[in-house]
C-alpha cells in the first residue's frame, strides 16, 4: 500500500489493490514481472511479445499523467530499459469490478502513441474471468487505426504465482515469501482458481480418522465406520481404545 499511500490514493480500494499487487511484484526480479505480463493477449489472441533478458532494468510509475491529447492517468507505467534502443513503456490500466470511465483505453492508447511512438504497449488488467472481447474491440476501434490493446486478468496472476511457487524451489527465501504473500492476498480477494484437491480425509488420514485407524491397527480389528466409531467414543457410548489412554498418561 506504500505507493497508494504516497500518492494519496488509499481511499480507493482499486488503487490500494493495484498498489499492493504491483508493489509486491516489483520486489521480485524484473524478469518475473515481465514474464507474467507476457501472458497478455489481444481479443484476437495475439500474445504480448517482450524480449526478456536475464536481468532487465525496470522502473515503475504509479498514476502518471499523460497529457496528450488530453489529460489521462493510467494506473501504472512500467519502463523497461534497454542498452540498445529506446525504453519500452508498458501502460497498465487495472480494474477490479469497475467499468472504464469514458474511453480510458482509447485515450491511453492515443496518448501512448503520441508520447512513446512505437515504443509502448497498453495492457488492460481486470477481474473479468474471460477475455472481454467486445470491450477490447470497441476500444481499439475508438483508439484509431493500428491500435492494439492487450488484456490480462487477476486470476492469471494467481495461476502464475502458484506456478512460480511450484517451480521455484531454488528461489531465495525472500522471493518465496513475497510470492506466498501475493498468493494469499489474491486468494483472499477472490481471484483463486482450482489448484488441486486438498489432502482429503478419505485419502490422507487426519485427526479422528488417523486416531481410529491407528487404534484399529494396534488392536488388530477390522476397520469399520471410523467416523461413527470415533463419534461414539467421543460421546462415551463405547470405550476409547487403550492406546489413547496410554498416550495421554504417558506422553513419551
Amino acid at each position, binding site marked *: 500500500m506504500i505507493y497508494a499511500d504516497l500518492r494519496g490514493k488509499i481511499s480507493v480500494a482499486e488503487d490500494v489493490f493495484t498498489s499492493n499487487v504491483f508493489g509486491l511484484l516489483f520486489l521480485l526480479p524484473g524478469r518475473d514481472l515481465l514474464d507474467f505480463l507476457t501472458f497478455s493477449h489481444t481479443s484476437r489472441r495475439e500474445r504480448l511479445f517482450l524480449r526478456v533478458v536475464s536481468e532487465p532494468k525496470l522502473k515503475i510509475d504509479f498514476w502518471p499523467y499523460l497529457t496528450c491529447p488530453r489529460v489521462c492517468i493510467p494506473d501504472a507505467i512500467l519502463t523497461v530499459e534497454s542498452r540498445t534502443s529506446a525504453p519500452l513503456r508498458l501502460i497498465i490500466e487495472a480494474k477490479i469490478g469497475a467499468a472504464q470511465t469514458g474511453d480510458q483505453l482509447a485515450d491511453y492508447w492515443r496518448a501512448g502513441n503520441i508520447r512513446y511512438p512505437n515504443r509502448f504497449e497498453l495492457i488492460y488488467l481486470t477481474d473479468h474471468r*474471460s*477475455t472481454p*472481447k467486445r470491450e477490447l474491440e470497441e476500444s481499439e476501434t475508438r483508439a484509431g487505426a493500428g491500435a492494439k490493446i492487450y488484456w490480462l486478468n487477476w486470476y492469471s496472476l494467481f495461476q502464475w504465482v502458484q506456478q512460480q511457487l511450484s517451480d521455484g524451489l531454488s528461489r531465495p527465501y525472500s522471493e518465496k515469501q513475497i510470492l506466498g504473500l501475493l498468493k494469499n492476498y489474491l486468494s483472499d480477494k477472490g481471484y483463486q482458481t*482450482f*489448484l488441486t*484437491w486438498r489432502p482429503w480425509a478419505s485419502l490422507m488420514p487426519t485427526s479422528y480418522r488417523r486416531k481410529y485407524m491407528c487404534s484399529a491397527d494396534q488392536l488388530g480389528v477390522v476397520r469399520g465406520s471410523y467416523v461413527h466409531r470415533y463419534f461414539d467414543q467421543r460421546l462415551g457410548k463405547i470405550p476409547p481404545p487403550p492406546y489413547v489412554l496410554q498416550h495421554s498418561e504417558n506422553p513419551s
Partner: protein
Amino acid sequence: VTSSPFVEPLREADAFQKNVFLIFNDIVDGIREKTLSATVIDRHWESSCKVYDSKNSEHVHLYIFEIAGQYRFVQILVKAQDNLLRDSAAQYKAVCAKLNLDPVVPLLLIYVRRFVEDGPWIRRRWANNTVLLDLPNREDIKPADPNSFDWNQPVRIQSPAGTDSQYCEDATIRLRRLTEIHDQNEIGVIVDELLNLAAHVGVPILLADQASLSATP
C-alpha cells in the same frame, strides 16, 4: 482442538464445495477463452448448492451454450436432487450401478453435445437426462441403455424419432469422475474434449428397450 467432532468434517465439506465451484468456473472460462473467435451464446448458467436444504438438497453446476447452432453443456453433479431420487429413478440408478457410482453423491462431470435443433428454448433437465435422471415414467420416453454408459469415452445416446424434445433425446456425452481432475491441465483437456465432441462416435447407437433395462444389475 475443535469444539465439536462435527467441525472438521464440515470444514472439509466446505473446502470441497469451494473447489467444485472453482473447477466449474475454470471450465466455463476455458470454454470462453477457446471459443473467442467463434460466436458463442450463453444459454444457461446455474450453480445450485443447496446442500443444507432439509427436504430437497442438491449440488449441481450447469452451463449450456450454443455454438454453430448446436447446444453443448457441461454439468457437475455432486449431489443429486432428493426429489429426483424419490421419484422413479431406476434408470439413473442403473447407470450409477454400471459406473460404480453412489446415486446420491455421484461426483460426476458430464459434458454433452446435443444434436436436435428445436428452437431457442432450453431445458435444464437435459443435462440430468443424459444420465437418465429426471425422466418421467412414460412409455413414449425411451431412454438409452444404462449398459452403454462408460467412463472417459464418447457415448451416443439417442431416442426414437418423435420423442418429446423436452428430453435430451440425441446427444454425445462423456463422463468423468469429478475427483479425477487434479489440476488446470486436466481442465484444459476437458474443455478441448467438450469442444471436439464428434457428431458420430465409434460406438453403436443404443436405443432403449425395456429388455435391456430389466437386465441391468
